[in-house]
């Protein structure tokens, strides 16, 4: 187990964490501002990935594909918000769960109907493929570094948007007190549509970026959605800062645990047992992390009251 391996895995964990942040940021914004739990957020991730794969297939341009993922997910988000989601804001959580679960069924089967059941592939463009050499002689894929960079830039942009702009002021006011911003003359339903579309666009971007590493297929958004929930539970619902910290924690824990736990067990057990037990435990690690956070702080690291 070398230093270089550890560093490589830390970078992998960061890349995973940054992706999770893009997912979790939208979820936590939508919950913080509108009080809505959206299970269909993973579908928007999938929409972004499919849009990117389709556009990349037609034009061959990765940049256009990314733009398409943002646009398609934002459009799908806005459409869903206007037709369905806005009827759910004053419903209880059960109705929100059911309606957004129904949306998943519609999105998933609709996508399967349009694109078929076989996975699509989105290629990493030539200018981003291949390894780069980092300090200490680490060879690391350029594309993954690019994902980390894009994620960090988008994250910084999001913090800037919320801290410094008009719409950010409205979002923060909306988190504090919904009646208040209506009283201030903000067009609340427009604000909600914009926030929802923004969250959707972030999810779509994440889907497209990951789509180039993995395959693009129906149902790809759901495991990520649940991880994003874990991130939010750890970070605290409604907190963007919590989403960032939670995402990095989950990303690093999952990646490092997956690599090092089996090796750790190998020191004590037979190789076959160690691999099996290590893999099983590694898959549970982030949930154990979540349980531990819950025991200490039931409303998450940066959450207010639950």
């Amino acid at each position, binding site marked *: 187990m070398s230093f270089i391996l550890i560093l490589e895995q830390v970078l992998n964990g960061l890349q995973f964490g940054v992706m999770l942040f893009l997912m979790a940021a939208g979820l936590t914004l939508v919950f913080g501002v509108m009080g809505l739990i959206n299970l269909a957020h993973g579908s928007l991730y999938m929409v972004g990935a499919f849009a990117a794969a389709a556009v990349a297939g037609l034009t061959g341009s990765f940049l256009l594909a990314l733009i398409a993922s943002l646009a398609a997910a934002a459009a799908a988000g806005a459409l869903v918000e206007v037709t369905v989601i806005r009827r759910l804001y004053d419903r209880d959580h059960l109705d929100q769960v059911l309606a957004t679960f129904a*949306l998943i069924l519609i999105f998933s089967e609709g996508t399967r109907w349009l694109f078929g059941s076989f996975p699509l592939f989105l290629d990493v463009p030539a200018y981003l493929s291949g390894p780069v050499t980092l300090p200490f002689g680490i060879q690391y894929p350029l594309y993954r570094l690019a994902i980390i960079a894009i994620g960090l830039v988008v994250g910084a942009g999001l913090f800037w948007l919320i801290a410094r702009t008009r719409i950010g002021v409205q979002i923060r006011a909306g988190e504090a007190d919904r009646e208040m911003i209506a009283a201030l003359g903000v067009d609340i339903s427009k604000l909600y549509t914009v926030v929802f579309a923004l969250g959707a666009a972030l999810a779509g971007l994440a889907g497209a970026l990951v789509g180039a590493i993995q395959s693009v297929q129906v149902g790809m958004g759901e495991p990520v959605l649940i991880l994003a*929930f874990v991130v939010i539970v750890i970070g605290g*619902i409604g907190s963007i800062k919590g989403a960032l910290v939670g995402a990095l924690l989950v990303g690093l824990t999952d990646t490092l645990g997956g690599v090092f736990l089996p090796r750790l067990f190998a020191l004590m057990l037979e190789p076959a047992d160690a691999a*099996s037990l290590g893999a099983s435990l590694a*898959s*549970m690690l982030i949930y154990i992390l979540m349980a531990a956070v819950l*025991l200490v702080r*039931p*409303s998450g690291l940066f959450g207010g009251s639950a």
Partner: protein
Amino acid sequence: MGRERLFNAAMLLALLAVPLLAWGLQEPFIITLATKVAILALAGVGLNIALGLGGLVSLGHAAFFGIGGYAMGTLASHAQNYEPLFSWPFLFEGSNQMPLIWLTAVLASASGALVIGALSLRTSGVYFIMITLAFCQMLYYFAISWSAYGGEDGLSIWVRNEMPGLNTLDPIQFFAVAFGVLCLALWFSARLARSAFGLALSAARQSEERVETVGLAPFKLRLVAFVISGPITGLAGALFADLNRFVSPTMLSWHTSGEIMIFVILGGVGRLYGPLVGAAVYILLEHLLGGISEYWQIFLGLLLLGMVLFARGGLIGAPVGSGGGA
């Protein structure tokens, strides 16, 4: 309430009559479908105790369904391989006897419910939903990576397990087993809803403050409800695995959680026989729409969406009117 009771009796009779008719007409496939309805309804009856009576929106009940399924798979596979599960601290052999398998399924899923409930009930609202979902997913991944019991491919059992005095390989007899368990569970949940515990639990759903003020702890009530609810769904899992003679991580997937919830909701939350109606409608839709289109779940999604947005009473709400409550 008279009309609802009549409707409930009619539903139960219909579930009994359809397979009997199919038996006469020698249509074993229909008997199997009816068995599936009974088992899935049982899973819903379990969830309904937490969801309908206690107001606990658990998106993690597939965990218990799967634990029950794996209890069956583990015991039966050890029995067919003649290997004990473990020999220390005591000898624990596999088994192909349903009563023992059920007991194991119930105990295992009750323990699971105790741990998951104790952690997730520290929170409420969306946190609770996300956390139950997360723990369910944890077990799902655990099952996928636990290669000793089939991992991602699941675990097949060659012969259906045995019930003393019955031939479970005969579809109608196995249906009778599932139907009997369902009736017992329905009877039990009806008693529970009217009991002291049911009153307090239902009050905790309506006003947590009220229950605390009379000196009862909502956390304890909900935890007990969760530990009662989980094993019923777990028992359904053991039966479901026996029906298919197969258990796989899919039983633990969160889609399964969503489906169990749909059974409860389609029939109407908090209605005793809601899960029965919901499961029956679900299976009917699966077979009617599934025959028309491969993508039948789009229609299921639209139906569910329409129901949540426009018809909140569920399907029983239409024939018997609203206001059933708990």
